[in-house]
């Protein structure tokens, strides 16, 4: 098994003024996703939603600036760390990951254990 990160990029505006119902729907979608990963033979090792980019602080060298590292329409809003057999398996899982306001990026985790 290989570890991959699923990075969720979405338009923040869609969450900024979301109603409690909309939040509930999103949470349920992620709950379902967690179940589907197991059904597909993968495993979620971790993950979280992030607060909006308005809370972000970036540092380049010694310069600290307000805001995310890159200003884009679709911002990193959350991630999962998963375990999958290969890229096709990871992609099959990532296709189910809820990201109605954008999409997801799949990246293999670099093994730095030196083994």
């Amino acid at each position, binding site marked *: 098994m*290989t570890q991959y990160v699923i990075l969720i990029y979405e338009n923040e505006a869609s969450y900024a003024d979301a109603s409690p119902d909309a939040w509930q729907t999103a949470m349920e979608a992620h709950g379902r996703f967690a179940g589907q990963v197991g059904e597909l033979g993968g495993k979620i090792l971790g993950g979280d939603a992030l607060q909006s980019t308005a809370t972000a602080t970036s540092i380049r060298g010694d310069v600290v600036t307000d805001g995310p590292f890159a200003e884009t329409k679709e911002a990193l809003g959350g991630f999962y760390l998963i375990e999958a*057999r*290969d*890229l*096709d398996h*990871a*992609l099959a899982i990532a296709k189910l990951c809820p990201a109605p306001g954008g999409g997801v990026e799949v*990246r*293999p985790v670099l*093994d730095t254990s030196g083994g």
Partner: protein
Amino acid sequence: MTDDAVSAAVADAHRREWAFVLAATARVTRDIDLAEECVQDAYVAALDAWSRQGIPRSPGAWLTTTARRRALDALRRDRTLRSKLPLLIEPDLPSAGSGADGPGDLAGPGGGPGLGGTALGGTGPGGSTAGGQAEDDVIPDDRLRLVFTCCHPALAREAQVALTLRLVCGLTTAEIAQAFLVSEPTMAARVTRAKKKISAARIAYRVPGAAELPDRLDAVLTVVHLLYTTGHTAPAGDSLVRADLVDRAIGLARMIATLMPDEREVRGLLALLLLTDARRAARADAAGRLLLLEEQDRSCWDRAAIEEGTALVTGALRGGRPGRFALQAAIAALHAEAPSYRQTDWPQLLQLYGELLRAWPSPVVALNRAVVRAMVDGPEAALAEIAGLELDGRLAGYRYLPAAKADLLRRLGRRGEAAQAYQAALNLTDNSAERDFLARRLAEVAAAPE
């Protein structure tokens, strides 16, 4: 054995067997770079060995055995040679690798998809495969795995194309760079990056399962078709056709059709390439000037290719809704069978283009349908369709749109507008044969009075 005969046999084996040898060697090395190196060494070794011992009955098996033995030696000599992320190999499909003895079994069903050690296995097959016996080894055919790996959707299209030429066709990086008019370092970087992604992102060395197959096969066929069209009308330069790319593309389509005989779209693609290529000799005149379909000498068309292509189309159209390659082939077949341009079955063509547009809603198809529409309903009707496509905007910068429009305007005698459209097409065209054609037409409409 003369040196010439041996060189010819090695060159022939390179053209015919490279993909087979590399695909089977990659299974042992679990590292594409090492596999390539060993296969290249095997071809060099063949020059010497075959002139001493004669050309083996099965050059592919000889080369595979030699390449695999070299790979195992290299792996034993230096375990660090094995990449940290070995190529992911899944168990065989039932059709391949069954009961193979010799090196074929190394990473076969027994070895399984597990990571790590199975490639070495410690079974020492190198010793059992020396000499002439090698020819009798049954080696599973991994060429499809190689093709699907090279054309994986996680790789950019241009990387898919480059990898396919490099790994499946065995072209050198310099040759591929030349074919696509980029510098050799650029192409080398492209190939290296793609290979790195295969191992780092863990793209598996396998033929996709039934659920994924239609999409994945479409990507493979698109790459082969792109190779063909790149060769068929070189995007720039002096020669209209780059014969080597065209032949490689047809060879690939043939190979895939042999390995996947039940896939109708594969047959459709092979038919399309054969039927289009049948017109190769008639596409330009003695001076290298581009000739339109209506100007071509149909007696120069390759009848054998047309016959083979037509037979393939018939099969590809049967059994349910045909795919886009089968439909394009059917269109090419209809042209090929027509005794003359005038006697072409235009209403039938228009219907086929309608079906194609449904199977493949592309503005390029819509443009082609408009051109056929002109033959059925007149140039005015076609111009109206083209005006719609211009508004759509997706074909902005596509040279055949102003070229088609110019031709329709010319036929209607609207010379001023035609001249403008020819000029617009010229501004978008780099191929010199096509430029000459457009310039000729531009001069004609500019010279004649309104």
